[in-house]
Every structure is written in C-alpha cells, then in structure tokens.
C-alpha cells in the first residue's frame, strides 16, 4: 500500500453531510466489537471513523452500505459519537454528490419509493387490498386513532397478517379507528438512513400533509421504523400529531380492560427486541407485558435481549439489499431462539418478521419454530 496523505476535501464533505461528530472518536474499537457484522464477517467500524477523520474513506467499497443502523455501537460509544449519523453522511455523499455507485438493489427500491411511494413498486390504489374483506373505514376527524400499518404489512402477502390481526383486535376492543388507504406513502425512515435526504423530505412532507388533511391527531403504527421517524424526525418538519407503537397501545387496551382473553395460548414464546423499538426508543417492557398477559403463554428470554438485542439485519436500508446466506444475523437469531427452547419467536417489527420468516424457511426450521408479531399472538387469545 502506498503512503497515504490526509484528504481535506473529503473531510469537508463528510462534515457538510452531517458526520462531523466523528472527530470525537478516540479509536477504542467499542463500535467494532458491538457491531453484529463481526459475528459473521469482518467490518471494522472504528477504522471507518479514523478514515473519516482523515478523509480517506473508500466511497467505492461496500463497507459504507453495511451498517444496519442497529444503534448498538452508538449506545455504547464512550465518546458519544453518533456513528449512524456518520454512516448516513457517507451514504449521502455518494447518493447526492454521485461520487460512487449506490448498490443496485437499493437504487431500484429507492426509485420505486420515489415513483409510487412504496418499496415494492406496487400501485398506490392496491395499498389497502389487505383490508378489503375486513370492512375498514378511512380515517376521519371523528376517529379515535389513525392506524398506519407500514408498506410491508400492506403490500407483502407474507406479512398481511400483522395488519389484519391489529384490525381484529381494534374491533374487539371497540376502538373507533380509520386508515389512510391509498393516500399513505412510505414513512421514509430507511430512505433517510440510506442517504437519500431529498426523497425523505418529500415523503415526510407528503405524509404530514395527509395527516393534517385527515385531521389525524393520534397515529398508531405497527412498524418501529415508522414510529421512530414520526416521533423523532417528523416534528422538526412540522408534524403535529402523537405517535404510539401498537405494543404500547395494546398494553393500554389490556390495562383498561377493553380486551378480554378467552383462550389459552399454550406456547413457549421468546421475544426479539427490534432495534428501532428498543435501542432507538427505549421500549422494552410494553411488548413483554403484553405477552405475559396472554393466558397460558410462557415467555423466555433470548441470549441477547433488551439493550443487547441482536439486530435482524433489516435496518438502514439493508432490508432491500441482498445479504449472503452465511452472513444473515436473522439466521443466528433463529438458532438462538431454538437454543432457549422456544416454539414461537415473537417480535413487533415488520422488517424483523420478514427476515426471520425468510431464515426459518432457508434453515428449514418451519417444523420447529413459528415467527409471529405480538398482535397475532394476542389475536389467538381473543
């Protein structure tokens, strides 16, 4: 390798794109050791921070696209470096300045979202097809809540059941709710992490406009990713509504006595903390409380749980990128769930559900374990 010279222009670009905080890094390697990638392959996060400090980033390489934004490194960083912001800045530099190539699968998905508002490239008018037979009305001023399911449960047949179970629960609890139907668009959380700030801004403005138009005051979401951006990012852009994750809402319904469990669910369940519910938003207890309240259900903990949860691999736009079979965190998670003797791996995030369902199939473990959203388990008990 030839001698290197610091490249000031690149340092300035990273700074302009919001990654300046990397200057605080003192190179202890906590991030590398915390990063789930290093359980399956080498990904030296610390080195990227140092390369960034000196402007010696390899923008052409795949490293900057690996980060699944699981927040484990950020939570543990002793210097408070927002490593996700740094990764986002590097991706922005590529996306916005065109200094290198965006991975194909990501580029196509972002194009779909840009063109028709969802990552799958399905027509907008098909968005509420999952609810056709369920007699669900559109949100109006009178509705108690607006239910916002996320593109994945709305379009992906494999995950429809999350939204359908949610609807059934809301009906049983006599909640007056509505949905947006074809007006909804992707929340943009992963788009932003993938580096397309302009598209994120468009999506956010569009959704904020729709919420205002339909007079939505309280939005209940199934996806921790929607939750995260609605709660922490939309307010700065003019969003004036409260957001509640369905696990929180469920617990409230149970506590208020609006849900009556009629059946036993005699299953051994383990709960996987989604990164964006747990580490990003400190919601650890509510999903567990919901599961514990289901009659007959036995809850056991995974080896890595709560703040140490192992990412499924789907955040930061990774859900749309191809991950080699031997490098999937979700495969490890299935093995861990089996190691604690669980016959259900429960979670509360559509991305996690997609990845785990895929892993169960490819590992050929369907006979041993099911993957379910907590709303599905609650529905079984009603």
């Amino acid at each position: 390798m030839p001698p290197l010279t610091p490249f000031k222009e690149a340092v300035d670009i990273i700074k302009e794109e919001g990654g300046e905080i990397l200057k605080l890094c003192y190179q202890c390697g906590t991030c590398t050791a915390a990063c789930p990638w290093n359980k399956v392959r080498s990904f030296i996060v610390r080195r990227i921070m140092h390369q960034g400090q000196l402007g010696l980033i390899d923008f052409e390489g795949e490293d900057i696209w690996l980060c699944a934004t699981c927040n484990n490194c950020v939570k543990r960083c002793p210097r408070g470096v927002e490593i996700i912001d740094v990764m986002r800045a590097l991706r922005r530099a590529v996306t916005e300045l065109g200094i290198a190539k965006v991975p194909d699968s990501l580029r196509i998905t972002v194009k779909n979202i840009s063109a028709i508002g969802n990552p799958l490239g399905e027509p907008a008018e098909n968005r509420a097809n999952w609810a056709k037979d369920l007699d669900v009305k559109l949100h109006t001023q009178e509705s108690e809540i607006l239910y916002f399911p996320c593109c994945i449960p709305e379009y992906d047949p494999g995950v429809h059941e999350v939204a359908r179970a949610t609807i059934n629960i809301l009906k049983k609890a006599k909640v007056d709710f509505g949905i947006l139907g074809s007006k909804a668009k992707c929340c943009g959380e992963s788009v932003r992490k993938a580096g397309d700030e302009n598209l994120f801004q468009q999506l956010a403005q569009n959704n904020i406009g729709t919420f205002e138009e339909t007079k939505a005051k309280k939005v209940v979401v199934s996806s921790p990713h929607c939750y995260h951006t609605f709660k922490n990012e939309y307010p700065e852009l003019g969003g004036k509504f409260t957001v509640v994750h369905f696990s929180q809402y469920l617990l409230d319904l149970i506590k208020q006595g609006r849900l009556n469990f009629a059946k036993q669910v005699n299953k051994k369940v383990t709960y996987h903390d989604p990164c964006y519910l747990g580490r990003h938003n400190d919601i650890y207890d509510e999903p567990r409380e919901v599961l514990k309240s289901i009659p007959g259900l036995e809850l056991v903990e995974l080896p890595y749980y709560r703040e140490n949860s192992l990412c499924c691999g789907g955040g930061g736009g990774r859900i749309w990128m191809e991950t080699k079979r031997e490098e999937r965190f979700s495969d490890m998670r299935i093995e861990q769930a089996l190691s604690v003797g669980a016959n259900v791996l429960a979670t509360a995030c559509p991305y996690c559900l997609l990845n785990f369902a895929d892993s169960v199939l490819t590992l050929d473990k369907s006979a041993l374990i099911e993957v379910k959203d907590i709303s599905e388990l609650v529905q079984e008990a009603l």
Partner: protein
Amino acid sequence: MGGEPRIGVYICHCGSNIAGTVDVEEVTEFARGLDAVVVARNYVFMCSDQGQEIIKSDIRDFGLNRVVVAACSPTVHELTFRRVLEEAGVNPYLFEMANIREHCSWVTEDRQMATEKAKALVSAAVKRVYYHQPLETRKVPLNPNTLVIGGGIAGIQAALEIANSGHKVYLVERSPSIGGHMIQLDKTFPTLDCSACILTPKMSDVGSHPYIELLTYSEVEQVSGYIGNFKVKISEKARYVDADKCNGCGVCQEKCPWKVDSEFEAGMGKRKVIYTPFPQAVPNIPVIDREHCVYFLKGTCRACEEFCEAKAIDFEQKDETIEVEVGSIILATGYDNFDPSVITQYGYGEFDNVITGLQFERLCNATGPTGGDIVLKDGSTPQSVAIVHCVGSRDKNYHEYCSRVCCMYALKYAHLIKEKTNADIYQYYIDMRCFGKGYEEFYERLSEEGVNFIRGKVGEVTDQALSEEEKGKLVVVAEDTLLGSIIRVPVDMVILCVAMEPQPDVEAIARLFNISRSADGFFLEKHPKLDPVATTTDGVFVAGCCQGPKDIPDTVAQASAAAARVLALISKGEVEIEATTAVIDERICSGCQLCPAICAYHAITFDKGKGVCQVNEALCKGCGACVSSCPSEAITGKHFTTEQIVAEIEGILI
C-alpha cells in the same frame, strides 16, 4: 480620605490577553475624560512590581484617594491591589476592579466591540468607586483545633501532620475502623510494598496520638460558624461495646453465631454480626451490627455478652451527639467504586468469575478470604485472566474522566497473578497512562514478564461459545485495534478495573460544608492549579480522592498540603474578616423579624428590649439577602450601598 474624590485609572494589557483584543490606548484616553479622574494610564502587567509601583507613586504625586484597575477577575488580583492602596496609605476599600479580561477580551474576537465594552466597564467602576467609603477589616482569633473528616490515608496523613506539630485534631470516620480503601489493598504500585505494612504503623500512631481524638463509627451532623470558629455536631453511633472496658480479645467475634457479607471483603467473604472490619482495626473495639443482630431483631442470643470476660457488651448503649469547636476543617471523605453491573454486556453479577478490582485485591490479600490464593469461585486456579481497563471511566455513558490509577493497578494485578499462578494475562486497554515516578519502568517490567496487551475496549464478556476451545470459558470479545480485527479470548477470570466515583452522599456532604462540586461530582478546589486544596468556603480544605481520582502518592501529597495550610492559619493565630457586612439602621427598623429568618448564617438576632434586629458582624458573610428582603430598607450592605450600585449601573449605560 476626606475631600473631593481624586481617581486614578489603570488599564492592564495582561501581555496580549487584554491588549490583543482591546484597544488599551483608546480605553485609557476615554478614562481620562471621566469625572474626577485625575490620571489614567495603561501598562503591560499591572500586577507586577513595576505596575504596583506606578499606582503607589501616582497616589503620592497626584494625591489620589480612589483607584480603579481594569484587568483580570477580582478573584485573581483584587487583594493584590487593595494591598497596594494600603501600603500607600489609602484605605483598601477605596478601590474597584473592572474585569476586562474574563468578561471582555477572552469572550470575543471583535476588537471594536471589546473596546466599547471595556470602556463601559471602566466607566461603571469609576462611577462606583466615587461613592466608596473607607471600611475597616476586623481580626478575630482562630481556634487552633482542627476537624479532619475521613479516616482513609488522606485523613490519616493530614491528621498526623497537624497533630505532630502539637495541635489538637478531631478525626471523624464513619466506619468502625480507620484505614479507608488503602487498608483493603494488597500490594501498592509500582514498588509492590504491602499496603497494610506501610499503613498500619500510621493507623496505630493515630490511635495512640495524644493530640488526636479519634471518633470512629461517627458522622458529622451539622456545621455552623466560619473560618477560625466552626461549631460542629458529630453523631457517634452506639457500638454496644463499652470502649473503656473492651480489651480487644476478640472472643465475642469468635462466639457470635451469626454471619453476614463483609463490607471490607467487598462481597468476597463473611463477617460476624459483632465485628471489627479486619484484625488490625484501629480502634480494636468491635461493634454490633444492629441491623443484623438477632438480639435486636428477636430479643434472644446475647452470646457475645455471655462470653465477654471484660463485661464490655452493653445493649443499652445509645447513639450520642457531641459538639466540638474547631478553626479549620479538612474533608478527606474519599471515593466509591463504580458498580459495573449496569454495563450488562460485561456480565458482572451474571458470571461468577467476573470480579471488580477491589474484589481481586481481597482475593489476592494474605489476610483475605482465601488467604491470598487467587482462585475461581469453584476453588480452582485460573489458567488465564483478562483485565479490562476503563470500566465506567473515560466513558460518556458513565464517567467521562480518567480514573488515573487503573492502568497502574491493572499492571500490578498482572504481576501478582503471574507470580502466584503463572496464568496467561490479557490486558485490554485504550491508552496506557503510566505517568508517575517509576510507573513507565513498571510497565516495561510487566512487558518483560510476558503480559499480553490488547489495544481495544472490551465489547462483551460472554459464555456463548463459538468453538470447542471456548466451551465453559468466559469469552472476552474486543476489537484489537492495532490488528484491525475482532479478537476473542477464552479466559477463566475477568477483572473489571472500575472507575473511582464520588461517594453516594457527596451532595449532602457538600451542602453540609457549603462547598461546591465540579461537573464530575467530586469536590471543587478553589483553583485547579494554584490552589488545589482550598475550597470556596474559607477554612475548609480538601484532600485525597474526594476532590478527584488519585493514587496514594498524590493523595498523601495533597493531605500534607492541606495540613500545611491549616498549620499556617494556626501559626498566624487570627483571621481577617471582610468588612463588607450588613448594618441595620435602628432608627428605621420596625422589628418585623423577616431578616433573621432569611439569614443563612444565623448572624441576625432580635433585640427584644429595643424592638429592633441586630447583625453579628463576626457571623455576617455580606451576602445581601437581608438587604434585599427588608421591607423598610433599614439594612445597608457595606460596600454594596444603593448609591454605589446605582452609580455602577449608570456608568455601564454610557
């Protein structure tokens, strides 16, 4: 001092600190034009001998009776310039300082704005000093007794230094024996002398010293008064053992049938319910742990009483409060160890053989629970040990500061483990900080002894094995940042070098003694470089780890320094009390008694005969709370009169 005010104004350059930003010539010219200003000059360092001489000769030549110096903060040099006036025969209170450094040149790079602000500050000072009145300081005798709080190495050292010069010391310690954390340690770095061997002689000196009154199992309850004349209430917990009768034979401890976790052994061993924390305790008088004693809980047992030949057990003993009067106070209340169980990924509390540094000290100590054998929970000898640096230190999530001693004691552990077990050692460090005398040499010695150094902060300690070799082991995972690779080391024991942190009740102690704390939670010294032992309260000094993490040599040095400061006060014999106190005009006072209730220093009393309130000037701190509270405006704060403050405001609004 009579006659019309004749004011001299002096603008300091402070090298380039002020002159680099403020146009000092322009400010000087401005000052010359102000009312009653006779002379205005600027000079490179007003605080220097030459600078002071300029003021003195101007006082002589121009008949000045007021002086303004525009320079640094009055906390730095107000006393210097007051002395200059005094030496030139002018009352020192006819002086005012304008802070054009900290409040002006240091906070902006805008030369024009800085110059304008400097003018405003000078104008305010000139207007104010016009109305200054000569005031007299008073001197009060200083009580030569000293209170030292905390019986660790810092308190012991300070107490002995003072007592050895023939002055009385009250040494208060909260636990049943003095010795502090140092007596828990095994060897001390880098010389490897045995901690107990060098400390116990000092402890017994304290115990038998004619000038030290040792109050163990005691805590300070209340402090009042001021430098030279503090009144302190100390509560002495009942030991339930008569100290005059007890001969320290230890039979009671042998016969007591009840065991609980020993605080001294840091959870690694047990003690009896009647106990001395360790065999060399000073005083060698046991205490009954009331919380766990079966007699106190259920009314039965009394085994200790039955076997005590000296008839020293006294279940009727009560807590007592004693009151002492002292002139100075040294706080040496020490530190606490960070609890690593909050860093869940390190597995402390989850895995048996993940222990803290202090627990290792006890494990390694010949007087410890294993007799000095370094063993695992199951009694076997470890084949490999990981030592994790910076646990809770240098970490924004816990403590941002460096605990300063961990690198060195981690090296010491490596040496002791090598010596006793020949286990493989892995040190996980971020930066090796071996800055003291002989420390770098010790680091080199350990490299020679064959210790593995891995540069990287540990990410996790896990029992999730990935290979046959890892099964049944604790796997320490980190990035070796020099290799640029994840490294997994299977070991038998993990030692966490936990941060030193402030005592849990540090805030209450700070409030009790009316001193400040720095952002890290430790007590704040008066000046970080030039006055590291004094505090913001006159007469209260700090020593040792209560002021910040430090090793034994630094602690001893600071304790000796605190003792020297106290001895200087004792040697002078009196203290000067500021003249800036409150006075009540008895002709106006309506006797409403609002002010005695407000005064934090108990300096105001109500004279029933006259029907008015009166200020005790010896107690008054001049804080002004009563002045602003008085509904009839009967109280004046000397040196802060309404006239002076209004003039100052008018001056700044030029």
